[in-house]
C-alpha cells in the first residue's frame, strides 16, 4: 500500500513527541498508520512511502489532541467503522492519551476529519456513553469519563507499556531491528492459533 506523506509534518511531530517525552511523566502514544493530515492531502511536499515502514509517535502534550492522528479507521478491515472508532477511543483512554475530563471533537468535526458518515461517529459516541466511558453533554460535546474501576485497568496498561518499552530497548541492544522484534512478538501472541491450524 502506497500513500503520499508529507515528510516535513511527520518529522516535526515525531521530534516533538521525543522532546516532550522527556519532560513529563505522561506516556507516549504510539499511533501506527497514517492519518489523513499526515497523508498530505493539503500539504505541499509529497513523497511515496510504504505504510509499514514507520510508525508515528504522537505525544498528547496539551488537551488539544489532534484527533485525526489519534484515530484511524480502515474501511477494508471487515469490522464496522463505529466499532473501530469505539476501540480506538477506548485504547486512547487506556493508554492515557485521553484522560478524565478531556473533550472529544464534535460529531461533525470528527466526521469531516476522518471522512466517515456522521452517523458512524454518533453511533460510536452513544455506545461509549452507554458503556460509561463518555459523557455526552447537550450542546457542548463529548467528554471522557473514567471510573475508578477502569482507572486500575489503565494503571495495568501503563505498567505493561513500561515493561514492553524496556523489553524492546533490550532487544534493540541485542541488535534486532524493529521488524524482527515485531515478528517475534506477533509469533508469541498468535502461538495457540498457529498450533491449531498446523494440525
Amino acid at each position, binding site marked *: 500500500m502506497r500513500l503520499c506523506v508529507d515528510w516535513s509534518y511527520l518529522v516535526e511531530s515525531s521530534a516533538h513527541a521525543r522532546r516532550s517525552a522527556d519532560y513529563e511523566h505522561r506516556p507516549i502514544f504510539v499511533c501506527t498508520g497514517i492519518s489523513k493530515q499526515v497523508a498530505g492531502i493539503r500539504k505541499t511536499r509529497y513523497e511515496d512511502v510504504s505504510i509499514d515502514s514507520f510508525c508515528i509517535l504522537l505525544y498528547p502534550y496539551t488537551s488539544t489532541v489532534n484527533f485525526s492522528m489519534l484515530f484511524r479507521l480502515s474501511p477494508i478491515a471487515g469490522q464496522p467503522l463505529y466499532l473501530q472508532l469505539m476501540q480506538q477511543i477506548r485504547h486512547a483512554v487506556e493508554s492515557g492519551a485521553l484522560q478524565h475530563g478531556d473533550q472529544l471533537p464534535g460529531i461533525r468535526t470528527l466526521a469531516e476529519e476522518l*471522512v466517515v458518515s456522521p452517523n458512524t461517529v454518533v453511533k460510536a459516541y452513544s455506545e461509549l456513553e452507554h458503556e460509561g466511558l463518555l459523557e455526552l453533554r447537550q450542546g457542548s460535546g463529548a467528554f471522557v469519563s473514567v471510573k475508578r474501576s477502569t482507572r486500575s485497568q489503565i494503571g495495568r496498561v501503563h505498567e505493561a507499556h513500561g515493561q514492553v518499552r524496556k523489553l524492546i530497548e533490550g532487544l534493540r541492544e541485542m541488535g534486532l531491528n524493529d521488524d524482527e522484534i515485531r515478528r517475534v512478538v506477533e509469533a508469541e501472541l498468535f502461538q495457540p492459533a498457529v498450533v491449531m491450524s498446523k*494440525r
Partner: protein
Amino acid sequence: MTSIPVIETSELYKSYGRVEAVRGVNLSIKPHQITAFLGLNGAGKSTTIKLLLGMIRPNSGAGQVLGKNINDAADSVLLRRKVAYVSENKQLYDYMTVEQMIGFTKSFYPDWRAEIERKLLNTYELPLDRRIKSLSKGMRTKLALLLAFARRPELLILDEPSEGLDPIGIEQMLENLVALCSEGTTVFFSSHQIPEVERIADHVCILHKGCLALDASLDGMRHSYRQIDLVFPVLPDESDIRMPSVESVRTEGRQMRVVVSGDAELVVERAN
C-alpha cells in the same frame, strides 16, 4: 430523528421500447443518512434516479420523494426546490462563465449559502471568469457540485459524483458530503468507487438488471459477511468446506478464499 423515508418507491417499472431498464424497484431511503446506490453499467441506476426526480415517467409503479408524488407535475416542481441533483453528464450552460453560472443558479434559491459558495470556490480552485465550455471535465463536476452543495438541499442526489475528479477532488467532495449530512441533508449517490462507498455510506442499495439485489446497512454487512483466506499444505476438496453459511469459494493454488455469512469460526474449525 424522524424515520419517515425520504425516498419511497413501490414496484417502479420503466422500459425503453423493448429494453426493461427498471423492473419493479422498491426503495425506502431513511433520512439523515448517506446511501450509496451501486450496480453494474446499465443496471438502471440513472434511470431510477431520473424517475425519482420526475424527469421521466414510470410505465407503472409509484413513488414518493420527501412526501411528494413523483408522477405529479405540480409536486415535481415543489420537489425540485428541495432536492439538489448532480447529473451524470453535469449539464451546465456552456456559454456562461463560472461566475455567471453561479449567479444564475443562486437567483432561484432564496436559501443560497454564500459562505459555502465561497469556501468551495476556494477549495475547488474554480476560475470565476472562465467560460464553462473551456472547463475540464473535473472542473465541470466541481462546479456542478458547488451549485448543488450551496443550495441547502433537504435531499442531495448525485449520479456518479466522483467520475472525472482527481484524488484530491474526490477527498474534498467526500468531506463536503459528510459535512452536509451532519447538517441534516440526506445523501443518495450512485457510484462505482467501492472504497469511497465503504468509507462514507451508512446504507447500500445494489441494483442488478433493473431489480434491487441488496438493500442493507454497511455495518450490518460488515457484521454478517467475512472473507477468509485459508492456506492448506494439501488442498482439500471444495465440498469439504461447503457449509450452509459459505456463500462462495474460490481456490488459487493452495489457497482458498471463502466468503462466509454468519459464524466464520465454524468454517475455520471445519478447515482445521
